[in-house]
């Protein structure tokens, strides 16, 4: 469904993404992991059309989308969320989600109706008429997800939607994401919370210093001590084992 081939992006002297490739098949939940500054968000920005790569190609459903503007990519059915949440601060939750819904629904009333449905779906039902400004971190992360979902995307790119959440909130949002996938949406997610990666995704890529250094099932990656020690920091292997035992 999505194929990223040999993408490179430099910011001045810094190579943020270097010759990175990945593939996402329809109907799957794929994770992209790696330490801070690895270039994950930059890769998302490239896929979403926000940043033009210096070289490499992005294909979505067999179509070359490299260099297309973000709105056009979104219309094809690929929507990203932002790691640093970007709410429409002055609008309510319902109005926020409705902006996403408008992509496929022209009428105002219709979009607002869709917004309510999507809001319920991600568990924001009671918050629909709150101003987006007043939401907690968890609420804002959920709102990112809801807005993207409302565009009726075929592929969602979720950038750390669980960062900063407490465990109970994570459990909830993990369930929500799984539900979304079951409704037929493919998901590529960046995640730091390993527990979530382990329980959600069937497949993961590891990015480090811009390079794609490993690919496999989370279980395989966890078992790969070189990956863990080198790229998730010392002691990570132990931590991961504990987390996966708990999950």
């Amino acid at each position: 469904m999505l194929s990223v081939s040999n993408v490179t992006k430099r910011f001045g002297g810094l190579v943020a993404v270097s010759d990175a490739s990945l593939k996402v098949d329809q109907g799957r939940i794929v994770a992209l992991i790696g330490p801070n500054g690895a270039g994950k968000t930059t890769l998302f920005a490239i896929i979403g059309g926000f940043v033009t790569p210096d070289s490499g190609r992005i294909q979505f459903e067999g179509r070359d989308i490299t260099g297309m503007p973000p709105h056009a990519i979104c219309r094809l059915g690929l929507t990203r969320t932002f790691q640093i949440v970007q709410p429409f601060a002055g609008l309510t939750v319902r109005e926020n989600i409705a902006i996403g819904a408008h992509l496929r629904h022209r009428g105002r009333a219709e979009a607002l109706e869709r917004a309510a449905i999507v809001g319920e779906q991600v568990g924001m039902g009671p918050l629909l008429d709150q101003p987006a400004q007043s939401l907690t971190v968890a609420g804002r992360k959920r709102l990112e997800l809801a807005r993207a979902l409302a565009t009726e995307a075929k592929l969602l790119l979720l950038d750390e939607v669980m960062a900063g959440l407490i465990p109970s909130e994570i459990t909830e949002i993990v369930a929500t994401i799984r539900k979304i996938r079951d409704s037929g949406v493919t998901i590529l997610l960046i995640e730091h919370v390993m527990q979530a990666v382990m329980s959600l995704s069937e497949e993961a890529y590891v990015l480090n210093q811009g390079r794609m250094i490993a690919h496999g099932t989370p279980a395989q990656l966890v078992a790969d001590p070189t990956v863990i020690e080198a790229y998730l920091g010392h002691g990570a292997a132990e931590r991961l084992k504990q987390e996966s035992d708990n999950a």
Partner: protein
Amino acid sequence: MKTTSFGEWVLYGGICAYLLTLLVMPSQLWLGFTINALIVAILSVAWNLLGGFGGQMSFGHAALFGTGAYVTAMLQVRWGINPWLAAVAAIVAATAVAGFIAALSFRYGLRGSYFALVTLAFAEVLRILASSFEISGGGQGILVPYKAGLANFQFADRSTTYALVLFLVVVAMLITLAVQRSRFGAYLIAIRENEEAAKALGIDTFRTKVLAMMLSGAIGGAAGVAYLQTYLFIDAPIAFGSTMSIEALLGPIIGGAGTVWGPLVGTLIIHGLGETAKHLVSGAPGLNLVLYGVVLMVILRYLPDGIVGLARRIGPRRAAPTAMPEDR
């Protein structure tokens, strides 16, 4: 859906009552003042579409107003074209100028202070051009010969002019209302609130902003036409000078940016204040402008949602704070 608060009823009701009273009981004294304020209000409504809803603050809306006025005047006086036709051409021209400015500015990603400055610069370029060429009347400006009559788009009777200008204000506000209730309006607001997020959700922000500016140009051009047909005179400082650009944004910001009523409310209130000041301290040119400046600062500090925002908070208001994005 959106409900109207007690304060809003009083505010809008008061304004409607005043405007309608003047329609049935014309008073020369009030007519002169109100016609002038309403013409500015049309331009304010135009500014509000892009500046209020879309968050792109132009400091050069005089470019659109002036184009409307100059094109009507030049077509009539230089080439003897029928004023109604000239008016249509002027509105088209102002729309085109708006589209040109917006396409250039937004193509290169100008926003915030850069957009404000580039629009101001465009207005200045037009001002210098208009005052430098024979065909646009040079430094003298253009005087349209007085020939009252419907065919000439001139009216001997001030209250007819008033009715016409009032009609234009109503049309402009209805356009705003339609925008506010449409996807286009929602997109504009999304761009104002967060342009990156808007892009991510599939909004063609460039196209949306350019279209808003063009719509703004059409309405701003109409304001210029109305000005010319009312006063039958235009020169470069009036048409393209900073005063008109400033007046265009004062109304919406004082009245309430991004609302349907804001531009009219704001314009009428500051013009009313200015007029009062003029009468109290006679022979003091510019003192009304000092007052505008003070009011602007006070509003920015204490009423960020303008007077309409204040009215909304007054009195009971049935629940359901849902719906229209206008309720920010």
